[in-house]
């Protein structure tokens, strides 16, 4: 019993350090605050994958009564620790991602055309910004066929992350 409590305390301490590290990298002023626009990046860099909607809610929780445009570490730490402890917003496994592409590839060709991809990503779900769309295209699209072979794309991204 005591052992387990110890282990949990150590886990929490470790999470705290990890969260602090990730936060500090974006704390450009060294005053324990980060720009609210970087919170999504920080949370995701810690391995979590909230949707845009979930992120929006989180930011609302983290902001001051009167939003200043900055998030303070004191507020961020407990919220983020709980997210990590509860293992919320788990990342998407590779096979689920592959199946998602396959669903969109109704004709089962093994690829999506550039136009199809743009249409899906910018018109449905939580639409991409222009910047996000351009970045995905620059890495994913094969310029000769003007299409994305999603299986290759996924493999490439997975390798890059590791």
């Amino acid at each position, binding site marked *: 019993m005591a052992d387990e409590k110890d282990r949990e305390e150590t886990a929490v301490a470790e999470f705290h350090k990890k969260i602090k590290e990730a936060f500090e990298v974006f704390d450009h002023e060294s005053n324990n605050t980060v720009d609210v626009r970087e919170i999504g*990046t920080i949370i995701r860099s810690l391995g979590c994958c909230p949707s845009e909607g979930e992120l929006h809610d989180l930011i609302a929780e983290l902001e001051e009564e009167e939003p200043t445009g900055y998030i303070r570490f004191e507020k961020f730490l407990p919220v983020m620790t709980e997210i990590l402890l509860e293992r919320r917003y788990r990342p998407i496994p590779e096979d689920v991602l592959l199946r998602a592409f396959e669903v969109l590839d109704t004709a089962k060709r093994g690829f999506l055309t550039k136009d199809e991809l743009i249409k899906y990503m910018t018109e449905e779900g939580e639409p991409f910004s222009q910047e996000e769309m351009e970045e995905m295209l620059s890495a994913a699209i094969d310029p000769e066929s003007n299409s994305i072979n999603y299986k290759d794309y996924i493999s490439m991204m997975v390798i890059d992350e590791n």
Partner: protein
Amino acid sequence: MGCNTSSTRIKNSQTSLRAVLIIQNWFRGYRARLKARQQYALTIFQSIEYADEQDQIQLCNFFTFMLENYKHIRKEEIELSQLTESKLDMMDKQDYVDLIDVPDSYQGPRLQFPLTCADIDLLLEAFKGKQILHARYVLEVLFETKKLLKQMPNFTQIQTSPSKEVTVCGDLHGKLDDLFLIFYKNGLPSGSNPYVFNGDFVDRGRNSMEVLMILCVSFLVYPNDLHLNRGNHEDYMMNLRKNKTYSISYLQIHGKKILQTLEELYTWLPIGTIIDNEILVVHGGISETTDLNLLHRLERNKMKSVLMPPKEINKDYNTDSKHSKLGVTISAHGRIKASGLSSEHLPKHEWEQVIDILWSDPRGKKGCFPNTGRGGGCYFGPDITSKILNKFQLKMIIRSHECKPEGYEICHGGKVVTIFSASNYYEEDSNRGAYVKLCSGTNPRFFQYQVTDATCFQPLHQRVSTMENSAIKILRERMISRKSDLIHAFQHQDRRKSGKLPVSQWAFCMESILGLNLPWRSLSSNLVIIDQNGNVEYMSSFRNIHIEKPIKEANSALVETLYRYRSDLEIIFNAIDTDHSGLISMEEFHAMWKLFSSHYNLHIDNSQVNKIANMMDLNRDGSIDFTEFLKAFYVVHKYETMVKPEATNLAEQHK
């Protein structure tokens, strides 16, 4: 039938919506992690840059020690070289420069004095064509610039108007392409297009001399409209790693005279600029004690170098927690002599004022603290900014000194602007460059740019990879230079001698030994192998990387030490090398090494060092080319493959 189809349709669209959401979610997570990796890489570059600057400043202490112990060895030689020195010193510009002939075969640009804007164009074209300016012209430009700078006050005053905006540029650090880009976008300097270049024109980039020449020539043509402020790198001691600062092609002939003149020129650069009586432009920043009235009055040319603090009459070592300890003076010509005669150097409190201006950084935290990152100047908060601006009836400070991803940054509620003009400073794509245009009555306008290369058209993940690999590489080189200390620390924590440590203990060791405040946990997967339980195999960092040994028998500890201190040694050797020949005598080398190792408490077998040094004396004439000596210690990176934990060969024993 109809209901079925529509419910199928709805189901399909729901499935496809879920699929789209999955892909978007995944991509955003991936993209965010890329941005985080990019930021980590930048943090690594910056930490190491500042740590290196700090190391250099610490040399101050060594120079004190050296003077006290070195004098008796070199006394005769010092006196001898003093004689030869003074003869050359006596030769003033005209005599010296007139002695240099420019051969007919010289294909490079020929400047015509007095200079005109045609010479600016000529020089720009020549440098674009990668030509070298002949030493005669280099010297003439430097002499003339120095002469003219002497007439400038410590702070130049500028007035703007709607038809005459002033453009302020930040650090260029020898990056010629950025200067070309600025002139292309914003026009050449002229009577109606004034510029302020806010220090750090040289050092780090490949074309320090070219950048300096263009700026000096422009200054000579438009002395009232091209303003040069001194930066912390316009300091001859900061540039004693001269093979890294000025390209060898400029120093091959008349290198000594060029460097001497440069050293003096730097001291004559104005400390700052004041625009429209309300904007202060200085390289670093301010401190809570900044006194502009004092700064206006002091004799700025007596500020030789940050590494040469003035000696107090009554040796008071405890008063300044802010600045490096008191030390020795090493004169502009490399002579080591007794600590500064008061007539040649600034009094201590004035010296500190200038250091603050050249080295400080703004921070969000209120108050004024020693700048522990750099080892000089301070960190100043928004309250300090307000106080000083109010005291001297100013509205804003424009400064440089720090690389910013967007090329510029505004802080302290709009009262402090950082402007940095060297794009891709750390690595391809690390940051943009920027300049700011000012006109009284209107808001400052910022312009950003980036010197493009083919890599800029690569997708984001490749650009991030490049930067990350570069950052990790220099971090690993840092680690290997402290290998013994790191292993010692790891083993101390590893009671069970398992070769493994929990990440937190590994991170603790890394931070305390390397002295770098980095996100170690996030970086761990790049630096070391981690097993399934999350434990670090701490020896794995040292596997695919080693320091090349100049001779087989040299022991690893020695090699590591020499590699680690090579920058310091280079500076020290250059300081001793009074005739800038690149050679020092074996005797000097031995004496120097002995002093160095005793001062830094290095437990090194001196006979081994001597053996290596002897090897470097290739023509047996008793002198060593120390550049070659130091080049002999470099890091070799083997092809890096991080083996996955499952595949680890369990039989592999760590040494």
